């Protein structure tokens, strides 16, 4: 195509911008796909894998939250696992006082919001690695607090959390845990998808890319950053709640710096800024070790896991989603060119 018939784009009257009509069927397809995928683990796999699937759900809620904060708002946080910890330990304390899962969840959300305010307000002016550092400080402080409140939190040895009981569902059963986790995961996903189509979501993108430009159109930078922090902390808190209920045991290492780094890894590997990426990332970090188990080498993962991580990250710099998108564009791009040359 040497394009002798180049049309000047700006004189082209037709307008493919807004596809209003496509909205509803597209939504339905997505819901259907989600439902089909969600049905796979309980129908096809044994208890162990259903348990792993439930873990993926819990982590996906966390990565979706981190993605809102990092992928969309550009605020790097190395305390996301700590917010999960806040959720998990709140759950534990509430359970010890005899409250059921619903009250636990309400308390988790409340505590997460407060914790997010405490972290986000003093750090409003920070960005990049510096912000990461301060959030890391929050993580360290949490670890320190747990170490020093053995009576309340079980201390360094961790604590076992009573399973959730919803009617006949008991979260110590993998299948039940999976079903319980499915609901918050689906809701979290729906909200995250929706966020991308709101002005709030665009404010976040604007802040990520240029605070000056954002201000020039009237975006409240500080308020939006805090909002992003709050949303992401609630997501993390809910993830912590799920995690505590599903695994039944929580300990400080589950929520330490490395845990936070792994959530960060999940977001980047999956594809920052995309909902699908957050899911793929969560699946990667939870399931990758299992691949080695399947291959009959369960103890090989720690040795080659690092190399694998580096390689994957280099092969898919835009995340797994970015890879898919590139392939898709290549296919579509070819088609598009053909259309144009006609």
């Amino acid at each position, binding site marked *: *195509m*040497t*394009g*002798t018939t*180049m049309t*000047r*784009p700006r004189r082209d009257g037709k307008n493919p911008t807004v596809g209003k009509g496509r909205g509803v069927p597209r939504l339905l397809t997505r819901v259907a796909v989600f439902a089909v995928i969600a049905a796979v683990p309980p129908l096809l796999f044994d208890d162990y894998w259903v348990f792993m699937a439930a873990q993926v759900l819990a982590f996906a809620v966390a990565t979706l939250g981190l993605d809102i904060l990092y992928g969309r708002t550009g605020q790097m946080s190395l305390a996301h696992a700590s917010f999960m910890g806040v959720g998990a330990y709140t759950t534990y304390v509430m359970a010890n006082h005899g409250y059921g899962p619903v009250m636990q969840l309400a308390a988790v959300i409340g505590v997460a919001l407060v914790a997010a305010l405490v972290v986000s307000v003093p750090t409003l002016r920070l960005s990049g690695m510096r912000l990461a550092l301060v959030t890391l400080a929050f993580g360290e402080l949490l670890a320190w607090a747990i170490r020093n409140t053995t009576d309340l939190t079980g201390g360094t040895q961790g604590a076992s959390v009573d399973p959730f009981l919803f009617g006949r569902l008991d979260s110590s059963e993998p299948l039940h845990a999976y079903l319980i986790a499915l609901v918050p995961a689906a809701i979290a996903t729906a909200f995250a998808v929706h966020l991308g189509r709101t002005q709030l979501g665009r404010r976040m993108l604007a802040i990520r890319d240029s605070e000056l430009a954002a201000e020039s159109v009237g975006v409240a930078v500080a308020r939006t950053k805090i909002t992003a922090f709050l949303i992401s902390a609630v997501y993390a808190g809910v993830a912590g709640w799920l995690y505590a209920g599903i695994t039944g045991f929580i300990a400080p290492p589950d929520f330490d710096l490395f845990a936070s780094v792994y959530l960060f890894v999940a977001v980047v590997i999956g594809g920052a800024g995309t909902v699908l990426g957050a899911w793929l990332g969560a699946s990667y970090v939870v399931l990758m070790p299992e691949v080695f188990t399947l291959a009959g080498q369960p103890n090989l993962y720690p040795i080659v896991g690092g190399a694998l991580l580096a390689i994957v990250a280099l092969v898919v710099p835009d995340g797994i989603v970015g890879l898919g998108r*590139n392939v898709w*564009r*290549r296919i579509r*791009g070819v088609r598009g060119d053909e259309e144009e040359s006609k």
Partner: protein
Amino acid sequence: MLTLESVKGWYGSTQALFGVNLRVPPGKTVALVGTNGAGKTTTLRAILGAVRTEGSVRVDDVDISAKPTHRRVNDHHISVVHEGRGLLSQLSVLENLTVGANRAQRARIDEVLDLFPALQGRTHQKVSLLSGGQQQMVALGRALLRDPKYLLLDEPGLGLAPVVIDEIYRYIAELCSRGMGVLLVEQSVARAASVADELVLLRVGTVDRVIDTTDSAQVDQLVADAFGVHH
């Protein structure tokens, strides 16, 4: 002679150049014109080796298409004014001017500052604090400091006041007459026609035609064809 032979260029998987042929002899100014998105900038990038290319780029009969950018620039005395300035915003004005330059080139700093009095006295300021036009002067200054054999200019007049533009083109014409080859990207065909010896019209990544600027009828035709003044 700077020669491009059927040069193709890609951004990732999208192709932007579809076989560009071009020659810039020493002592001549060749202007690349074309609508927005025609591939003018990409052509310059191809010469520098900053996009993935196929085809051959030769300087004085040496094929440089396999060389890394810094070798092309240093060994073959090419320098460039990037589109939209391409300055290093963390560096000072002086550092922006001298980065990568050798000792002899650095010695020419005063000459360049004479050309842009606006920069005098602010050489230690961060370049991002300058006004848009002053930044463009730094970009030009960096290219001129190197006393190149071939100068690639991507819209050198961007953001400059008329008085400065005139002066710049006068200076370039002078360098050109001393044997420098200039490849100029210019939005204004009129301006291009007035300074260049040859106009090269790019369309969707290929050379549509090459005309001599002394033939004003052809220039008018080119403007009419390419920029569609007919509506």
